[in-house]
């Protein structure tokens, strides 16, 4: 090989770039090109047209579906936060062995098929299912309660699957907080609750933000759970896209819906970043 070329190729930076190449190519082929093609599909039929975007804003049903999507995502994120934070807190303070066992359980649960987990909820929540019969047997309810195919079951099903994405970042941030800090706060006259509120909680916020972002953005694109566990009103944007693809066969419109969801997600991320200032928190060495 030409010596000069060899030198260039063996330069540390060049070597690093070479190693990155397969990943970059894969990203380009499987991510950039499809998105570009979709963007194209949403704008050309076969000539340039904005009608598929205009349609979205003209017909209230699509705005409504978007609103339902955001609403369900926010509720799911809030539930994940309310359940996940205490869980992560307990986990971070549990013994080494116990927390390891729990973490393995959490990661294993992520390996179980989404469909299986959603169907389990059907069995648990359906009429005369586990919860319904239990409530009647114990005498809390005297009639069948509708637990399935409504907002409740969708939120439960989604939160159950997305919970790890809230717990893990919060846990890892909590774990990295110097255990002396809340102790120090206590020696300075803070009650345990105050020590948590003034010290542990603010320091765990980067984990909360990360979890919030992960869960919310993943929720926005949810498809299977609202389809299986939802009722008539729990139609999310992905269900609408699938409906356009599968039933209506309007792929141009499906592409424009997908692009709108993508843009909405990016806008949300940007606003979130501006408001919360993730970089600023990093500067503090948190």
């Amino acid at each position, binding site marked *: 090989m030409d010596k000069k070329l060899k030198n260039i190729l063996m330069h540390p930076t060049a070597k690093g770039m070479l190693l990155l190449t397969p990943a970059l190519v894969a990203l380009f082929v*499987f*991510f950039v*090109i*499809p*998105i570009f*093609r*979709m963007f194209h*599909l949403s704008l050309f039929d*076969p000539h340039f047209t904005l009608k598929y975007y205009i349609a979205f804003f003209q*017909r*209230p*049903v699509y705005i*409504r*579906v978007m609103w*339902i999507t955001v609403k369900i995502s926010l509720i799911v994120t809030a539930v994940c936060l309310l359940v996940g934070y205490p869980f992560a807190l307990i986990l971070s303070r549990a013994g080494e062995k116990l927390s390891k066992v729990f973490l393995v359980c959490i990661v294993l649960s992520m390996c179980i*098929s*989404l*469909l299986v987990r959603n169907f389990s909820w059907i069995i648990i929540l*359906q*009429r*005369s*299912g586990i919860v319904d019969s239990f409530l009647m047997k114990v005498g809390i309810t005297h009639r*069948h309660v*509708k637990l*399935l*195919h409504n907002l409740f079951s969708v939120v439960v099903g989604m939160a159950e699957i997305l919970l790890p994405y809230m717990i893990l970042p919060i846990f890892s941030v909590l774990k990295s907080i110097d255990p002396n800090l809340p102790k120090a706060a206590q020696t300075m006259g803070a009650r345990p609750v105050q020590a948590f509120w003034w010290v542990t909680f603010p320091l765990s916020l980067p984990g909360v933000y990360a979890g919030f972002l992960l869960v919310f*953005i*993943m929720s*926005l*694109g*949810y*498809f*299977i759970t609202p*389809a299986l566990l939802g*009722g*008539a*009103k729990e*139609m999310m*944007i*992905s269900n*609408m*896209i*699938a*409906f356009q*693809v*599968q*039933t*209506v*066969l*309007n*792929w141009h419109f*499906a*592409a424009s819906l*997908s*692009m709108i*969801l*993508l843009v909405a*997600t990016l806008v949300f991320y940007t606003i979130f970043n501006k408001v919360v200032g993730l970089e600023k928190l990093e500067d503090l060495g948190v």
Partner: protein
Amino acid sequence: MGKKKISRREFLKGTAVATAAAAVGPHIFVRKATAASNKKIVICSYGGSYQASQRKAFFEPFEKATGIKVVEATGPDLAKIKAQVTSGNVEWDVVDIESRIMYTAITENLLEPIDTNIVKLNTIVKPAIHKYGIGNIAFTTALTYNKKQLKKAPKNWADFWDVKNFPGPRSLQDHAPFNLEFALIADGVNKDKLYPLDIDRAFKKMSQIKGNIDAWWESGAQSIQQLTSGAVVMSSAWNGRVNVAQSKGVPLEIVWDGAAYDWDLWAVPKGTPRKELAMKFIQFALDAKRQAYQCGKLIAYGPSNKLAYNYIDKARQKQLPTYPDNLAKQFSFNSKWWQPRLNKLNEKWAAWKIS
């Protein structure tokens, strides 16, 4: 078509990416077929006990008779057929589809015409014969209820709407076709004067029952599962599947009054490399004895081959949608009326559902 070809793969991947469904399962499940080979034929049908009956009556005998392997797929979505045909990568050689799907597929130019040199039609009933598809069985979508869950037996669609006398959650299929007809019948429209449908009246009637529909089913198996488990007390369901469940001891009952019958057809996606083989299979599956075995022993649908009735006993015939007494109580689903309105009405359906 050729100029605006969209790769199916790219499209699906793009959809998945843009919906930000990061790491959450793929939206559409498509099996990748290997290079064309005459050693096998890929057939896509509706799954569940229905496809199981086809396996026993057609697929396995076909394999035995020809040595050609039958590869099965499930869920013959229009989108998937369209994706396969437009990408020039046709994986399914034969599809079993409902009549309205066939009509849409025809307008989208997705099907091969039936080769009547191979497929013999002289003993096939008239309504089953089309240029792009040959009827396989007649099926009925009927009001079905779980006897254990209801004190009184519902007699018709009006009873389905009557939540006072027939309390309990209900289920219907998640799309506009059939349901709008049922709604009109419940509202008092004569079953023989349904078409053209009064759409506004139908949706108005649908709104009355909406709050009592616990779940909108998407697969035939789902409707039976819900009825069996008692999750719902009444549902629309396909009669053959109900029949299979009954034979397993599930206390389900069919109401023939105001039910809809329609045809399931064999069709061949355009551009399959095994077109001739596909036609041969259809001819094989239309055989009277084989249909009689399927409809007489396995699942209670109506065979399209007139001669098949010669091999089905009288008692069994009474359970079939095509039995004259049953036929008289039903209406024929009008796919031709639906086809041009399908997309618009399905969009209206989606909007109505979430409103």
